[in-house]
């Protein structure tokens, strides 16, 4: 019963944490990419 319970909870915990951290990293990367694009477009053309 212990293996059964800890197994189900463990898998959900790993996947849920991965989901949350993945969503957070996506937000950060999107913010970084927007900032990067903005900087690139603001640079004066030679």
């Amino acid at each position, binding site marked *: 019963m212990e293996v059964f319970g800890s197994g189900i909870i463990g898998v959900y915990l790993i996947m849920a944490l991965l989901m949350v951290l993945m969503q957070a990293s996506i937000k950060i*990367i999107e913010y970084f990419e927007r900032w990067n694009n903005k900087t690139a477009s603001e640079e004066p053309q030679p």
Partner: protein
Amino acid sequence: MFKILEGLVFSSGVANLTFGHVFMWLVAFVLMYLAIKKQYEPLLLLPIAFGILVVNLPLTFLMEPEHGLIWFFYHYGIEMDIIPPLVFLGLGAMIDFGPLIANPKTLLLGAGAQVGLYVTFFAAILLGFDLKEAASIGIIGGADGPTAIYLGSKLAPHMLGATAVAAYSYMALVPIIQPPIMRLLTTEAERKIEMGKMRPVSKLQKVVFPVMTAMIVMLLAPPSAPLISMLMLGNLFKESGVVERLTKASSNELINIVTIFQGLSVGATMTAAVFLNPKVLLVFFLGLFAFCVSTATGLLMAKFMNLFLKVKINPLIGAAGVSAVPMAARCVHKVGSEANRRNYLLMHAMGPNVAGVIGTVAAAAIFLKNLG
């Protein structure tokens, strides 16, 4: 002259044949038929079938410890955990995690499908298997061959052949097993739900994903390290785009070579003495049960998520939470498009499908942590 002939006959395999050997030949021939004629997972079933055949030819001693040729493949490849991680390296180099990154919520569907593993684990114990055997049977529900072999070789090596053949057979039978369960557990209206276009995923997100996933999963479940590290390394090769030769080698030559040794070694564990046991029949039955329950729990998880989501998902994609990449996703797409011609679920189903691979590895790691 007569003595020479007599000696020849009695020292040959023919004189040592038993009913068990002949029965195992039949099993091998059936698997060869399924692989060649029906093309059910031929890359695996063919070497497995050949392994079964040759190991059941008397006096060949191919699996004789320290002497037999296939024993060396098995010992160094499977027992020492070399082959399954190398298969995962190749898989990582082939898999596109883009659909999962586009919709990270589908990770929960990958987790939902793993509930079937634990239900089967419980059922196997009730049917008289010990904890380690029950875990290696339950993992069949994950529909992930290398993980089933990895866990089986550690927890119940005496049942490895049966669990591996069951896992690959049911993976091949996805288009037959899953659709009735999908139709049974969803309404027509649910199957018709259309899912919009997927969010575009940038290269940076795809490069960060394997690094981040490897770190998180290995930190939380260290026994998953051999499999998850190789899976994510292969994916990093692919997504970085700077090591094309390594990506190609991992996804072609390497995975093809290790697949040969994996199949042959697993098949060779199925000697008559091991296979002709009522418990093996139970393994096949429980494997099918695991696969069905995993499909069902994936679907039910998607329906449960729909209670909270503003934009509903098509619950069929939950069935792809069992690994079986990409057959389960294709099957979801087929059933979805039967209900609604405008439904294009393939890429949406790939998210839970690849999440299922990670989920099955996590489940195997937890089994190993508790029972290994």
